[in-house]
């Protein structure tokens, strides 16, 4: 008996499969421009007793293969609680959205906040800025950490911030300093989102941006709590969906 969860995100698609002993195997692939096709390939020759879809593409997958859908909010609550039983607060910074979720002791969602239509302060924001500074996305965090002095970035809008970065480069500012300033700006924004749902110790940091060492350090310092970072932070939603498949 195998149960699976598929998290169709804006940048990556993650599949998590649980066996009888709750051992998990997973796959993470790029979403690309044909997410449905990618999902089909991912699911080919796999059989499950239950498959639950989550993520922005959940309804599309539901129509084709999945038994049911749950939202990312619920999926992250389930997944984060399973990986870190002490979890009471979740921060997910994904490709196109940021979520702050507070959960009760039993793992039920108490409150949540999400950015609305724009991708300010998300993974996509970092990607665009990395490109503007000629960094690989994997390296921008480490580079920012090495910066002697951050530059203040005023814009959170991806388009405005990119022109702000361009003018800073033109002024001769070191790119490390700009990178650190960008991370600080995201950290400020994320911090206030978390404060709106209330920060309780047991904060799980998930999503692709959780891999970024600079974000980890800045958030820890700003929030004054330890961060619980899953070994694979991009799988939390898919795991939550798989757990839900098993439960129902």
């Amino acid at each position, binding site marked *: 008996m195998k149960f699976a969860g598929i998290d169709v995100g804006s940048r990556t698609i993650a599949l998590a499969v649980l066996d009888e002993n709750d051992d998990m195997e997973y796959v993470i692939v790029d979403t690309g421009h044909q997410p449905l096709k990618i999902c089909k390939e991912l699911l080919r020759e796999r059989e499950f007793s239950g498959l639950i879809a989550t993520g*922005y593409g959940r309804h599309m997958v539901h129509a084709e293969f999945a038994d049911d859908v749950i*939202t990312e909010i619920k999926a992250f609550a389930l997944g984060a609680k399973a990986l870190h039983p002490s979890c009471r607060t979740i921060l997910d910074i994904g490709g196109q959205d940021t979520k702050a979720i507070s959960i009760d002791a039993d793992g039920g969602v108490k409150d949540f906040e999400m950015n*609305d239509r724009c991708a300010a302060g998300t993974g996509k924001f970092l990607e665009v800025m990395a490109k503007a500074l000629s960094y690989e996305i994997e390296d921008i965090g480490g580079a920012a950490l090495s910066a002697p002095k951050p530059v203040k970035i005023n814009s959170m809008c991806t388009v405005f911030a990119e022109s702000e970065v361009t003018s800073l480069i033109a002024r001769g500012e070191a790119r490390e300093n700009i990178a650190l300033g960008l991370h600080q700006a995201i950290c400020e924004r994320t911090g206030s989102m978390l404060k709106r749902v209330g920060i309780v110790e047991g904060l799980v940091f998930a999503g692709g941006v959780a891999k970024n060492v600079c974000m980890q350090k800045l958030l820890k310092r700003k929030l004054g709590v330890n961060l619980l970072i899953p070994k694979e932070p991009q799988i939390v939603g898919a795991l939550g969906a798989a757990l839900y498949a098993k439960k129902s």
Partner: protein
Amino acid sequence: MADYCKMWESLGINLEAHDQLLNAIPPIYQQIFLDQINRPQAMSYFDMVVMEIHGLRIQELQEHKAKGGAVVGSFCVYVPEEIVLAAGGLNVGLCAGAEIGFDEAEKILPRNLCPLIKSAFGFKMSRVCPYFESCDLIVGENTCDGKKKAWEIMTEDVVPVYTMDIPQVKSEKGKELWLDEVKKFKEKMEEVSGKKIEVDELAKAIKLVNDKRRALQRLSNLRKNKPSPISGRDALLIEEIAFYDDNPRFIEKVNVLCDELEERIEKGEGSKKDAPRVMISGCPMVIPNWKLPFIIESSGASLVCEESCTGQRYFEDLVAEDGGSVGAQLEAIADRYLKIDCSCFTPNQERIDNIVKLAKEFEVDGVIYNVLQFCDPYAVEYRRVEKALEKEGISVLRIETDYGQEDSGQIKTRVEAFVEMIS
């Protein structure tokens, strides 16, 4: 549908743009309204009204005008319909619920402005609203900053607007100002219609508008049943139609519907039994802005109440019917309208208390707070609403959006997660 092209042409409608608008409505209407299963049969009247939105009703307005009656267009629940009716006029709420003519409107208005105001300009400037083109008088009102400034521009650049001044504070001075405005509006209507407003006509008009409110109150009260016998979007549609339909016919049809709903309640028919009950609170939802109600109900919740100008604010409270003179009647009208708890007032504790009261009466599991983009009064007042609901243990989700569809996916995720949370 009958051929109304000649009528539209005579009103100066841009037929090509108008065709595009009319062709856009049926598929949306099919998906949102007609595809619902087990709808009350009496909804067929309201379906007909929407399908004939620019046809039959416009023809009725022309017939009314041919007999010498005036048509008054307004944008706000503060404009006293009783006075328009007593002067032999008809009052219609003007179109402001779709992204129409924004390119035209943005030539004279800032981009970052409430979509309702932009839409009102857009409909007029692109000449696609036959209601607008039928009006003998357009009445604006000094409610929010956006509107009161926009009427200046509409008057200068588009079409003259008669503006009613609304006090910001419900003090004795505020009440005096408002009563004075109501009296001035009576004089204006007498001037427009060439007819003096007499006590008998005004009494009849007060009774008629009260009857409309009573019918809508009856409908609203039936939704307190579990399950609600009617979907939220159908009820909202009726609340929207109330702004422009023929009053006696509308009242009769709402009551016919309510009779049917009472039968459904007996049989336990209606929304899904275990669906969480949700109230929408905040900005008006003007035809055809059904975006948020549709997302809420297709996410598995049952929408049971609209704390909105297209909802409770329109039909709560009646005008006292016992005024023996025009003066007393105007005072009764001023009293009733000043009870409206729009967020443009300060302080506005009535609204906060009313939201909590409605949430309890309708036994809602959660409130979705609806803010039109750039609507400062409702956006800022949210903080106090949130705190009051939190104190009562009622969950609330704030959604800020406009008439565009590009954020539907994100809104759906948040609404679905909210529904999961309160289920």
